[in-house]
């Protein structure tokens, strides 16, 4: 059974130390407060969890397996590598844990329409899926550049009945999709619920997204104890905004022996200026409703980012990860585009599992860490999603397809 206690909660205003908070336009303050109240009320309600956990089990397919990747371990040499198989969830990524939770909340609040931003399209697909199941109208905001590189997911969303709205403003990627979704929500908040896709944004989103994803770490922790008889030494997850990372890492926070590692996208390299490593290279700033680490210039203008993976291509990061880093409870790693591509191929060939490019960043860093550890140690890696959506990008990078551009 899952532990439903809310530990390491932010303060009443949603602050994790100096990070987080609710830096929102006035029009959104009341709708955000209503979501916060609905969330806390639902979280106390047994019926809410009964329905949620039933859906997670019988619709999403949880618990997802914890897989001891023996071939990959042998190939790497070093610590035992265990993979948390979020790629096996319905829709193919961890994102659905959150959209089930927020979808139930939206229905509970009587909202008829949901909106979401999406980068890789996984959150968009997961939102469209829940909207289809609950019979809600669904509009998804997606940067035009991301639509091009994640076309299969765009088509899946359309098939699911969602309206995918291209975003051309700014850099035409995830941050601009968030801007556009916020602009729409300001005008529609009376009948519309904004299903936010990551553990960032204004309070209560970082908290509620975390809570809806902690099933990942809670299962992994119990499965690791059962299969290996002990806790992992290191838990590793990639970070776009931080939802799969908080989901995996949060339940290990009080296990002092477990190192918690967040892997950012190093793009063309951390010193290239073309990456998405907000924790490693950013500074504290305010964007999308929260105070967190941002990639920005000296005058607070937010920078365009680069990553081969659309889901990591975001200049901010969840405020709780910023806080954990500052507290010394989080270690940072970064994987480049090339390292992620390489890790994707290594896992595919050694284990027959094709991971998402996002998750491949965690794999690259996780195997690097495992290499320097001993065989009686354990590295737990969150395989946050499967790679189907990325095949076009991967084939092009390998030179197997002609690049039309």
């Amino acid at each position, binding site marked *: 059974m899952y532990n439903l206690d809310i530990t390491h909660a932010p303060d009443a*205003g949603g602050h994790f130390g100096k990070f987080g*908070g*609710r*830096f*929102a*336009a*006035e*029009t*959104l*303050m*009341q*709708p955000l407060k209503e979501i916060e109240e609905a969330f806390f009320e639902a979280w106390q309600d047994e019926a809410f969890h009964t329905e949620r956990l039933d859906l997670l089990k019988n619709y999403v397919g949880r618990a997802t397996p914890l897989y001891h990747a023996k071939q990959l371990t042998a190939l790497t040499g070093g610590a035992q590598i265990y993979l948390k198989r979020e790629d096996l969830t319905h829709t193919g990524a961890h994102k659905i844990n959150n959209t089930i939770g927020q979808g139930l909340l939206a229905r509970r609040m009587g909202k008829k329409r949901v909106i979401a931003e999406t980068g890789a399209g996984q959150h968009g697909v997961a939102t469209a899926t829940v909207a289809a199941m609950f019979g809600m109208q669904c509009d998804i905001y997606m940067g035009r550049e991301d639509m091009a590189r994640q076309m299969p997911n765009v088509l899946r969303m359309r098939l699911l009945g969602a309206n995918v709205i291209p975003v051309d*403003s*700014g850099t035409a990627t995830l*941050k*601009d999709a968030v*801007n556009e979704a*916020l*602009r729409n929500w*300001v*005008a*529609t*908040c*009376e009948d519309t619920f904004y299903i936010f896709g990551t553990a960032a944004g204004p309070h209560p989103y970082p908290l509620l997204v975390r809570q809806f994803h902690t099933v990942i770490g809670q299962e992994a922790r119990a499965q690791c104890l059962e299969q290996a008889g002990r806790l992992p030494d290191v838990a590793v997850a990639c970070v776009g905004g931080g939802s799969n990372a908080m989901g995996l890492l949060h339940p290990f926070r009080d296990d002092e022996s477990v190192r918690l590692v967040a892997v950012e996208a190093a793009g063309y390299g951390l010193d290239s200026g073309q990456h998405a490593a907000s924790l490693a290279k950013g500074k*504290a*700033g*305010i*964007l*999308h*409703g929260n*105070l967190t680490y*941002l990639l*920005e210039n*000296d*005058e*607070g*203008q*937010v*920078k365009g980012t680069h990553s081969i993976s659309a889901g990591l291509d975001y200049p901010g990061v969840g405020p709780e990860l910023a806080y954990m880093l500052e507290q010394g409870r989080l270690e940072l790693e970064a994987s480049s585009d090339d390292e992620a591509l390489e890790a994707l191929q290594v896992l595919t060939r050694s284990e027959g599992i094709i991971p998402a490019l996002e998750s491949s960043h965690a794999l690259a860093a996780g195997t690097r860490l495992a290499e320097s550890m001993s065989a009686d140690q354990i590295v737990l890696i969150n395989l946050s999603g499967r790679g189907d959506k990325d095949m076009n990008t991967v084939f092009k990078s390998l030179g197997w397809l002609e690049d039309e551009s």
Partner: protein
Amino acid sequence: MSAPITTSRLPAVFERCKQQGRTALVGYLTAGDPDVSTSRELLLALAEQTDILEIGMPFSDPMADGPVIQAASERALEAGTHIADVFELTKNVRDAHPDLGIVLMGYANVPYAMGFDLFSQRAKAAGADGVLIVDIPAEEGHICDASLKQYGLDRIMLLSPTSTDERIQLASDCASGFIYYVSLNGITGADMGDMQSIHDKVNHIKAISNDLPVCVGFGVKTPEQAAQVAQFSDGVVVGSHFVAHITQAATKADIKPALSASAASMRKAVES
């Protein structure tokens, strides 16, 4: 030389309008749009017709703005507008208009990156009276209130149709200068909401808000709308409608006359 003015001019602006039996006209332009030198001319021209000038600080991610002001921010940044230019333009306007109310408007990350102490000091030195930061509600005022106060800058607070009585009280306690009522649930440049409900909400806010002047904006596009809003508010804010002249004009030289004519007709509307 006279002693530097350390208090805000905003109360005097509203007092003057009241004595003259009219409603204040508040005009908005983004600093540096379409470039710094044209922007200087446009701000100076708009200052001729307005009681309060809102000078927008361009930002990469203007989340509460519609297409017109988003594009203005993008043009200003592309033209290389820096925060130093925003202060410089503010000072140019101040030097030409000693009694004008000037409010710097924008998003939190720009002043946060500079540090609110330094930002407030420079804003004050440039001649600003107040600051309006869209994404710092009263609850998050801990990051800026002390600095603004130290430099005698008013904090203009936004209220909207979704603001509850509790929030109206909270914002009023935090605000000085005036309250900016956003007349609709939406972004800048959208269509105005129903006039009667705006009127009712303004009255309601005035009853709660410690006698602060209430200005109404978002969506005022015609002199008729401005005249109607002027009947029940202390100030009418016109933004996107003025900014739109920058792209509507055939050449840069055509912007200023069009803007001046447009501002003059708005001015006439709020005086009637």
